[in-house]
């Protein structure tokens, strides 16, 4: 059981690191993106940020499970708080990520559709 939780914690930490890298590179890529399509990347950035927080909460919960004996001494209610955090993450943060991602794609879709219509109009003219 402990090995399983340790493995999950390790994967969480790694995912967290790569999520951070992704956040940094989305921000860098934004500088080279066209202004009209920048809103989509902004929404994606927000979504990944919410996912990052969710992953952090997940990592904290698994850290609490792994280091329960040492944490209990300083924070006896650690397990309860971890449960609350997990609930908040599942209830709010993950759906927020989904909404942000959906909005990002909607922005891109609308912009590209608009450009396509404009091209068609130019061609017909």
């Amino acid at each position, binding site marked *: 059981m402990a090995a399983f939780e340790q493995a999950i914690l390790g994967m969480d930490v790694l995912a967290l690191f790569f999520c951070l890298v992704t956040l940094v590179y989305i921000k860098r890529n934004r500088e*080279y993106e066209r202004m009209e399509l920048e809103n989509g990347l902004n929404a994606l950035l927000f979504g990944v940020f919410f996912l990052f927080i969710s992953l952090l909460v997940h990592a904290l919960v698994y850290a609490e499970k792994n280091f329960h004996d040492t944490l209990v001494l300083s924070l006896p209610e650690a397990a309860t708080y971890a449960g609350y955090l997990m609930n908040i993450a599942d209830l709010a943060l993950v759906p927020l*990520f989904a909404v942000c991602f959906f909005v990002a794609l909607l922005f891109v879709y609308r912009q590209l559709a608009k450009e396509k219509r404009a091209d068609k109009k130019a061609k017909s003219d």
Partner: protein
Amino acid sequence: MALSDYLILQHYLTVILLIIAAVLWYKLKQSADISQLRGSRMYSTALLLTLPFLISVITFIPDQIEVMLKQLLLLLIFILLAVAGIRSYREAFKERKDLLRELYEGAEKHPIRLEFAKHIVEPEIHKIMDVKEKHLLERKSLQAKERALIHREEQLQKKVDRLENLHKQLKEQEAKLVTMKQELKEKERSAGQKIDVAAKKQSELQATQQRQTERDARYAEKIKALDQKEAKLHEEYSTMKAELKKKFDQLILEQRESLKKQTTKQDLYVKEREDDLKKYREELNQRKDELHKKRKEVDDMKQELVDIKEERSYLQREREKYQTVKEDALSTRTKLKKEQHDFEKDRSDVLALQESVKRHETKLKRREEDLRKDIERLREREAEAKRSLEEARRGKDKIKPFSEPHSIVWTTADKKDKKTTNKTSSRGGIVAELKSHVNHVLDLFGF
């Protein structure tokens, strides 16, 4: 609805939203050209994030496997996302670099390029170099000032510590003075009590003395009256004795003569006379008894007189004792007066000491306040110096990129205009203020 139901609902909502987004993306991919979107690869990869949330919705997978799969997928997708992000960034950066290089290579063949470089770029570079040197010098001087300020601050801190120690010592002395004051108050109180007791004793002694003199006067009057009474009684006794003797002698003579005259004839009469004599004898005896009684009374009075004399001597002794007590009281009174005088002296000394302590305290507070103000000013100066240093650094940073000379020239020229007017005056002002301030602080500490 329970929390678990909400959680399930939210999971489903997430999955549905992600699936709709995926559908939208693939529709877009088919209809429009997504190659003009730089982050298209990132969007495509991000759509894979639907999978882990889809797994969490599927119920027939065991919990542990589900968690493991979800984490594994999340890790892989984030790795892919990071790679996609890095790759797209590199590609974009490479494109931008090529564009910039094209611009640069195109300008190389321009005919006035050398002239432009000689007359416009070179002087600007020289100016920038000068500004840079100036900034370096300023930075060095500021660093030196900063070091001097730090050194001064350390010295001031030491002085503050010393002053704090002095303050502590003063506080301790004050506490000692307070205890001394309390002791003196206690002494004063005890002395007052002693004085009160002595005054009471003195008043009591005076009252007893008065009573004694009144008693003496009364006793003297009594003695006098008794003496007079004694003399009177003596006189009465002697006169009575003489009268009785006279009467007796006369009666005897009369009886003898009558007896001599009426020896035979008046035997009865003699008998009667004998009876009378007997009566007279009885009367005499009675008188004798009375006299004896009176004598007894006189003896009693004499005894009383002796007692009174004894009492008088006792009173005399008491008076002597009282005199000694009075003398003692007087000596204690003088002692108490002396103590009171000493106490007054100590009190005045304590008051003087208190005043000096208060003066010291006020002086110390003033010094502390001055010092605090000085420290604040020094901090402000330090902050100002740091700010100017920061500005100098920022100015230096702005100089760095040579790829955009126009903007740099504009900023440096702009800065130069400002600094040439302000810096000389502000720096001189700061130095003068610092000097005056340091002199003021040194004056405060008497150096």
